[in-house]
């Protein structure tokens, strides 16, 4: 009964972020400090994500999130928030280019059946940027309106 390496279905990175998620919203009162807000997923599918972004000089400088979902959903939102905040923040245009694939890669991969979960992170981000763009009349950002009921 040799258990080589870890006996997790997920990568070490996923495990790390799932067990110690970063940047999640601890206090509902913090919301008012943020400039954009997105929600994707639904309870029927078992995944729901909310994301808040703070923008300064066209750069995302802070991120908070809440997630209902499995370990990979939680870890992928957590690592996305870290990605966005590193090196002093992420320009909005660059943030819009982040894909599910990028997140998955940063996580060190995901089991095939779980790939769909990581896709929610970039969608929540896009929804938050859309919200920011709407509020600030930033049609130049060319971000699409998120779908109401997001099935995956």
């Amino acid at each position, binding site marked *: 009964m040799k258990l080589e390496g870890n006996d*997790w279905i997920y990568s070490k990175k996923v495990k790390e972020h*799932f*067990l110690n*998620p970063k940047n*999640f*919203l*601890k206090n509902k009162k913090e919301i008012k400090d943020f400039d954009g807000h997105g*929600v994707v997923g639904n*309870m*029927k*599918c*078992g*995944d*729901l*994500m*909310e994301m808040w972004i703070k923008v300064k000089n066209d750069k995302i400088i802070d991120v908070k999130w*809440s*997630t*209902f*979902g*499995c*370990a990979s*959903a*939680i870890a992928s939102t957590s690592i996305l928030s870290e990605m966005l905040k590193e090196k002093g923040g992420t320009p909005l245009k660059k943030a819009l280019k982040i894909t599910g694939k990028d997140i998955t890669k940063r996580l060190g991969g995901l089991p095939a*059946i*779980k790939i769909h*979960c990581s896709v929610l992170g970039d969608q929540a981000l896009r929804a938050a940027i859309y919200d920011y763009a709407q509020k600030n009349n930033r049609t130049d950002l060319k971000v699409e309106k998120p779908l109401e009921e997001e099935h995956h």
Partner: protein
Amino acid sequence: MKKIYFDNSATTPVRKEILKEALPYFSNNYANASSFHSMGLSAKKALNESRKKIAKILNCTQEEIIFTGSGTESINLAIKGIAFKKMLQGKKGTIITQKTEHPAVLNTLAWLKKIGFNTIQIGVNNEGIISLKELEETITNEQKKGNEVILVTIMYSNNEIGTIQPIKEIAQLCHKHHTILHTDACQATEYLDIDTKKLGVDLMTLNGSKVYAFKGTGLLYKKKGIELEPLLHGGEQEFKLRAGTENVPGIVALAKAMELAHKEKKSESKRITKLRDYFIKKIEKEIPKSYLNGSRTKRLPNNINISFEGVEGESILLRLNEKGILVSTGSACASYSLDPSHVLLAIGREHALAHGSIRFTLGKYTTKKEVDYTIEKLKKTIKFLREISPVWRE
């Protein structure tokens, strides 16, 4: 880290006494039970004695026991055995079941539907129990339409939520309307009465992997007079109903397991029921918005299935796993598929709660200390996950 195993309904460890009983048949007394030399006869004898022991427990004759390779195989043999028999007579007919059955039943019926049988699933109430009235109406409706009801298959107790069906009454009802009843008793063997005469069933499936015996073992009780087509054709083993070299160690282990379960049933059921009720009470007290799935009374002694509002099952499972606590969930995320438990949906749980369910199945080796430790860790886990959840508003 020592593991706390709360997944006994998925499968049980092999009990030391059972392994010990079977071990000589691996490398010492290993012959084929169909061989004519002394070692073969001795294997045959072990086989026959196992059959005799089990017959006594099931209160049936030895010829009414067919050893198979799993619960799934027994179920497939029972259902297809009846269906193919009809098919060979140039007939088909209706098979009735209910919504919370194990996939082995549901998918067997789905397949028979593809080849032309009529299949009906009746619903259950919010405890997971079928309505005898609905079953009767379904049978008589079919018969009125001129459709022969060739089989009713209703599980004895559910593997996810532990709900116990009124099998005795169901059997009586089936016989009143001249139809046959198969029951899947895989989860019942350890704790419930499996006297076939008292239950009145015609076919009953049991397996070894849930009763501290071996994986890959099972049996089908088949009442005398019920006729089946075999599923595995070949040699003449098992009264020509199930071909293949007899798995003597597996059968010896199954017999020993059933014997031990029989002997300890009363005391173990009592002990485990008490522990279960303590566990449920504690959770409900310590963790707000936790909802027990299934019935409070018509429930397997070892089953706790509970949904936590605002959190998802796989996350709970994996965080408990980090604390050495092994559980199962009805969440889609932990099923290698994408749908939440069909059982929880059948009892009317909304998707959110179905995704947030955890099953603790207690066993022979469960202690109160383990339960206490688990409750403490569970409390913290739920609290944390609710903190990061967008749907939890205190």
